């Protein structure tokens, strides 16, 4: 028996190294899948806000300094969070789902496209208005939750 085999088998026999049960890997897999879905939904929501909030703001002030206004109503921190989220999501999908068989550029392109299109479609639906109404009713004001307050 080789020295290495001896050491490894001794560690196993003495229970210094324990085999992880199958359930551990099933739970980890389920958790990672839930994590990917949750992150995807969050990033779609952020992208949706990145489209929706400027559109809301634009209706309020059009004039000679339109571009300056457009620039000022873009919720930059949401855009940055959204882009970071897309980056993180791409990284997780690439490394943990077997997507490595495809080119990274493809994965980035497909994930970004799906997220941006879904976020945009969500922003033009009445999802945000419904959400605002819901928050408004919860706060008893009926005027939305005020997350676009900074643009007024």
């Amino acid at each position, binding site marked *: 028996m080789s020295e*290495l085999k001896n050491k*490894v088998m001794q560690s196993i026999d003495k229970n210094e*190294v324990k*085999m992880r049960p*199958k359930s*551990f*890997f099933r739970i980890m897999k389920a958790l990672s899948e839930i994590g990917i879905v949750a992150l995807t939904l969050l990033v779609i929501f952020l992208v949706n806000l990145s489209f929706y909030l400027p559109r809301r703001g634009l209706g309020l002030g059009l004039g000679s300094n339109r571009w300056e206004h457009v620039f000022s109503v873009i919720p930059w921190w949401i855009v940055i969070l959204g882009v970071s989220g897309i980056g993180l999501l791409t990284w997780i999908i690439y*490394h943990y789902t077997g997507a490595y068989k*495809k*080119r990274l550029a493809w994965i980035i392109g497909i994930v970004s496209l799906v997220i941006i299109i879904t976020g945009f479609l969500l922003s033009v639906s009445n999802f945000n208005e419904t959400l605002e109404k819901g928050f408004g009713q919860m706060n008893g004001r009926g005027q939305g939750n005020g997350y676009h307050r900074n643009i007024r």
Partner: protein
Amino acid sequence: MLLTDEEIAVMVQDGDKEAFGEVIDRFEKPLCAFIYRMLGDRENCADALQETFLKAYKNINSYDPKRKFSSWIYRIAHNEAITHYRKNTKHVALDEVVEIASGENNAEIIQKKIDTGAQKELLERALLTIPLKYREVIVFRFYEDKSYEEISEIMHLPVNTVGTYLSRGKNEIKKHFKDIHLEEIL
């Protein structure tokens, strides 16, 4: 009848600790050679190899018997080799090659090595001078005789990228021998 690697892995999953001894018997030498070519350092190699087997045992239940067991265990060895490579920034063999390459009589030294049948050693040392990702692909393809698909699975790279790395790796090695007319070794 000789059991396949996959059948032995299933036996280990089913709780047969002794079957893991057979896994060690089958993979100790090839994994040792692979890790050594990656690290070029025997001490680190032994540590990385031991860690590889311990992790393989610990995580054996994550192995899917429908897939090739050797690719699964090589993936662990790949991760361990990279971990040890990053920990150890000292690469003696690399310095030696640089020394040879920059010496006044480098052609003479290398020719002598060839004459004494040391091409293999020379190549292995040159291998240690190229970036790890290219080195690994070359080791898998030419020393371990793995297919592009297997390398892709072990390294988590697209098959096309494996081909690209292989070609770049060969070019990197050729660069080392360019001035001393040793391309024919490659």
